[in-house]
């Protein structure tokens, strides 16, 4: 089993991690694998299958939605979301109790993911960094919200394939006035 991701490694930030063609050669099947994983993740989250989504995450996963634009680290700033696996499980359990009124009725979500760029991690063996952009529509009470932003995933090769060791979500409107964001981005 691959050892856990050290807390000290840097968080991938899409806007500061742009490379030119040929700079990060990788096997073509790796890119297909990344694309498939991101599509499966999107399908599970859009379907509200959040417990099954947890199966895509490593045990030491960290999920981060920064509040500040171009934030570099979650520790010393207020974040929209900063969860480990237990908190993600709590987040899902809270909705499952039926008493989380901000998700009653639940959000209906559809997301598109595109502009996928991936490369091997330079800091960690068996890890891939994948940047993508998303456009997500969410409705509740017949109010429609449209969000765009960037996903940056740190993926680890485990026994059954790539798993998500870190996920950061940079919302284009992260530090603006926001409505209810109690669904998983």
């Amino acid at each position: 089993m691959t050892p856990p991701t050290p807390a000290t490694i840097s968080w991938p930030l899409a806007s500061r991690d742009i490379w030119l063609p040929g700079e990060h050669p990788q096997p073509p099947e790796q890119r297909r694998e990344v694309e498939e994983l991101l599509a499966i993740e999107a399908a599970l989250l859009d379907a509200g299958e959040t417990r099954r989504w947890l199966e895509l995450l490593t045990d030491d996963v960290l999920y981060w939605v920064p509040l500040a634009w171009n934030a570099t680290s979650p520790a010393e700033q207020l974040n929209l979301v900063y969860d480990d696996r237990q908190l993600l499980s709590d987040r899902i359990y809270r909705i499952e109790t039926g008493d989380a009124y901000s998700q009653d009725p639940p959000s209906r979500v559809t997301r598109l993911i595109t502009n996928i760029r991936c490369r091997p991690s330079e800091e960690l063996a068996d890890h891939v960094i994948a940047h993508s952009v998303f456009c997500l529509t969410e409705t509740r009470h017949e109010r429609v919200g449209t969000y765009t932003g960037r996903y940056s995933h740190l993926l680890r090769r485990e026994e059954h394939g790539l798993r998500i060791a870190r996920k950061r979500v940079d919302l284009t409107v992260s530090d603006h006035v926001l409505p209810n964001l109690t669904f998983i981005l």
Partner: protein
Amino acid sequence: MARRSSETLSPLVEQDHVSREIYTDARLFQLEMERIFRNTWVYVGHESQVRHPGDYVTTSLGTAPVILARDEDGELHLLYNRCIHRGATVCQDRRGNANFFRCHYHGWTYRNNGSLTGVPFPRGYGDRIEELKSQGLERVPHLGSHRGFIFAHAGEPARSLSDHLEPADSYLERFTDSVPGGVQLAEPPYRYSYEGNWKYQLENAVDGYHPALVHRSFMKVMGQRTGSERNPYKSEEGPVRVKALPHGHAVLDLMKARTMSARDEDYGDSYLERARMAPGGDALIRELQESLGEEEAARALENVNDFNLAIFPNLMIIQSQIRVLYPVSPSRTELQAWATVGEQAHPLVNQLRLRMQEVFNGPAGFGSPDDLEMFDRCQVGLTAGDVARVPLWRGLDREEVEDDVTIGRGSDETPLRGQYKEWAHLMGSES
């Protein structure tokens, strides 16, 4: 709504009820902006945001955009963010440091104390250029600071800021002194909104009736984590008290509940447990305990969390958070919520204060969004039917008066009655 005279309003607030119009009526909202937000002390910022000469933040006073700026001499100014020429805003950023504010439409430039320093092609104004220069950016005339909290008054103050805050001063002091070196706002804040009236948030901050009900899902999460769903709100016989202070200020007081946290299975509520929810929380707390000792570590995390204070009309201290409401319309309100840290507190204490905010607050938290959902639902439901009265008399016959403070049980509406008494006083709608 029937047309009302500009001087007096028929009673919209009585001791035991309010009229639903105070939440829904557009004309009353305009009157609130004039008679409350321009005619009492309104919170506009914190000293830690404008510590150095040149520091500024942009905010709003009622619905008006304003700049809170500290000039080179260290003086604070609250300036309307409006060029005196064509009216364009002169400052575009939410915060920063600048000696000058320039309107980019015709290049008029102001110092950070509001005075006009220059106008391109000035000969067109002839001798009257001096008139403009003496005018400068329009300012809010009264600005004061108390224990780090900066308030403005756009009318004629009936009392000084310190007199206005005096009834709440022991709470402000307790908050300010709760961390070494005093509190500092962590930037950026949460910014979020709901489709409901601003007063729902002011009520909710000191409403001890709703937590056991609206926040049941959070309590279940805590219960699953700790093996006990204890919380101080679970019974109306519990240790929580609410207070209506003079001038519309109000308190939800958890002090007694906190001192019970270690021993009382029914009512205790431990913030150490909330800190433990942070990613890597166990290790962070262990490290803090090794550094400060177990008792001091627990105190550092617990002692800011024992009351909610609502300063009428727009400032709320919710445990370690500073929350400010900004009315937009009768049916829309924006909020900003700052986590606070201690200027000289242990770095891990400050990190854990941020983590504790994230778990409950903000647009993706486990608590606040459920409150906001209720405000949205109130705004939709309240317009239905013929009954205009909204009851406000819960606990009226069991509250006690000590000096000029009225004290009720945790779930009673004592604080709301105090808030609406002040509302009616300012609005000229006393019964």
